[in-house]
């Protein structure tokens, strides 16, 4: 039975999520339990289960019977042992004229009533007339201000706390709940699941009070806002599966190749607070998987946005491990949840664009950087090549300089060489001239000498001693061969050699005489 019940519950959860309603609106717990116990195999048998009438049978009959048939083999034995009353007091009602045995017990009757009442969830507006807060339950009564009609209400503490409304006598509120008879007292109460403050004025007042309280605590402080991840890879999204918000978000975020996990939740009205709160808690339970949480819904009146002005939800958002983008409502109706988020944007579209923008910018800057990088390197290369060219130029310039100097030197040299050559030639011609002169000189000189020789010859002939000797003169020499010119150069007794024109004689000095002496 437990298996079937679990299967039925899962089926109901999916159904409720798909239809965007709360699970009890699909089938009540009592009905699910009834099915699990009865294990119906035909639509007729299903109709025998409490809380299932024509409409439900038409809507869900086929699916329920299929779930049951899958589970039957495992649980049949158990089912057979469970006694189940055949009587169904409702919807047909008791036969007024039936026999006594047909009468139902009080308890069973109340059970029947409660089953019927469980399908009568309602949203009721009224004035709080008395409040009795206990540990686990808060009892209060609602009064109709027009005619004083009264209704008993109770709300469990956790729901009361999530609702975030502190009721007191005289408050005008709207409650949502299911009527139920408390069997020990036979008293009808509204089991309230949610309390809202009624009326724009009261809502505004509650909003302002909560704002002041959380503001004082620093929940909205700029300092605790975290920067959004520049390039989130896994996003948790909380919004309704129906409605424009989800479409706007998914359309505008573009193709970023990221993962988006939707935690579906109703976002409309105060009752959404439970689902949104639950969704955030589920996301937080897997906080390591996400680098961003996005909560979005379309704009609306302060009433329809009430869930997001609920203290419990505002606090839950502030507690999130990952940065939160809130795209809840438009500028004019800023919710406290949005104020508590790390980034507040006006619409689901704006939330999507906030995420998309860094990707777009990165794509652009990537292209830009690529261009700069290529340009820079191109510039580097061309600068390098310029540098090389410059170096080559310098070198060539140098070479050219060298060559010019060389050329200059060469021409200078050649000029000089020419000069030298000229000088050499000049010198040579001078030498030639000189040589010529010299040789001419020599020639002249030769002629001269000959003439002089001839003259000297004739002169010599004139002075030939033989000629003089012939005239009768003689040459007197001393014994030593020296010519005797003065008588004093000799002495008596000396032998004198006298040469004559023809022949020689030897004489001896005998005496000296003066020149005039005879």
């Amino acid at each position: 039975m437990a298996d079937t019940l679990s299967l039925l519950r899962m089926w109901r959860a999916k159904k409720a999520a798909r239809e965007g309603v709360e699970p009890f609106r699909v089938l009540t717990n009592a009905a699910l339990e009834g099915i699990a116990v009865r294990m119906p195999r035909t639509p007729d048998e299903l109709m025998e289960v409490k809380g299932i009438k024509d409409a439900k049978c038409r809507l869900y009959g086929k699916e329920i019977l299929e779930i049951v048939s899958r589970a039957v083999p495992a649980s049949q034995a158990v089912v057979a042992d469970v006694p189940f009353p055949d009587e169904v007091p409702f919807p047909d009602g008791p036969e007024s004229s039936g026999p006594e045995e047909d009468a139902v017990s009080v308890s069973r009757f109340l059970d029947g009533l409660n089953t019927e009442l469980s399908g009568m969830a309602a949203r009721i507006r009224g004035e709080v007339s008395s409040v009795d807060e206990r540990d686990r339950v808060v009892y209060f009564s609602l009064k109709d201000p027009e005619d004083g009609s009264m209704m008993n209400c109770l709300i469990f503490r956790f729901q009361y706390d999530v609702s975030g409304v502190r009721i007191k006598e005289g408050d005008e509120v709207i409650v949502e709940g299911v009527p139920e008879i408390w069997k020990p007292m036979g008293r009808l109460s509204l089991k309230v699941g949610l309390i809202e403050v009624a009326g724009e004025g009261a809502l505004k007042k509650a909003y302002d009070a909560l704002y002041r309280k959380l503001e004082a605590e620093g929940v909205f402080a700029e300092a605790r806002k975290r920067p959004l991840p520049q390039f989130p890879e896994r996003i948790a999204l909380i919004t309704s599966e129906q409605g424009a918000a989800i479409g706007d978000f998914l359309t505008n975020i573009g193709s970023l190749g990221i993962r988006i996990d939707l935690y579906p939740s109703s976002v409309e009205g105060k009752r959404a607070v439970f689902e949104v709160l639950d969704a955030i808690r589920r996301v937080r339970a897997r906080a390591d998987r996400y680098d961003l949480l996005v909560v979005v819904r379309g704009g609306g009146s302060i009433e329809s946005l009430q869930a997001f002005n609920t203290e419990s939800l505002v606090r839950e958002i502030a507690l999130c491990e990952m940065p939160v983008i809130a795209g809840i409502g438009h500028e004019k109706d800023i919710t406290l949840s949005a104020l508590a988020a790390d980034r507040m944007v006006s619409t689901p579209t704006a939330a999507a664009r906030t995420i998309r923008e860094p990707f777009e910018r990165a794509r652009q800057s990537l292209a830009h950087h690529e261009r700069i990088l290529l340009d820079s390197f191109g510039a580097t290369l061309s600068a390098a090549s310029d540098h090389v060219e410059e170096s080559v130029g310098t070198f060539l310039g140098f070479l050219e300089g060298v060559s010019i100097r060389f050329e200059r030197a060469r021409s200078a040299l050649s000029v000089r060489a020419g000069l030298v050559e000229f000088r050499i030639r000049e010198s040579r011609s001078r030498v030639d001239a000189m040589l010529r002169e010299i040789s001419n000189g020599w020639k002249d000189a030769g002629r001269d000498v000959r003439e002089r020789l001839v003259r000297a010859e004739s002169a010599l002939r004139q002075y030939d001693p033989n000629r003089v000797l012939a005239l009768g003169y003689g040459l007197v020499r001393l014994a030593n061969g020296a010519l005797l010119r003065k008588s004093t150069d000799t002495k008596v007794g000396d032998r004198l050699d006298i040469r004559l024109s023809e022949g020689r004689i030897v004489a001896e000095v005998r005496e000296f005489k003066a020149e005039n002496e005879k």
Partner: protein
Amino acid sequence: MPEKKQSLGESLKALEGIVAWFEDQQQVDVEEGLAKVKEGAVLIKASREKLKEAENEFEVVRKELEGEE
């Protein structure tokens, strides 16, 4: 968040650094410039890979079991 070897943000930052380096240099050393360009090219490739237009993965995460009302 699951850390990658180098995130897109880090790649882009590194790339900006390289670009800034080029812009800062009066006289770029060709060898060093070439190394930077190679590094930049790798970063661009990796970033482009991450930034390429790709369908997002979308999944609806439903509750396994609805709690009691």
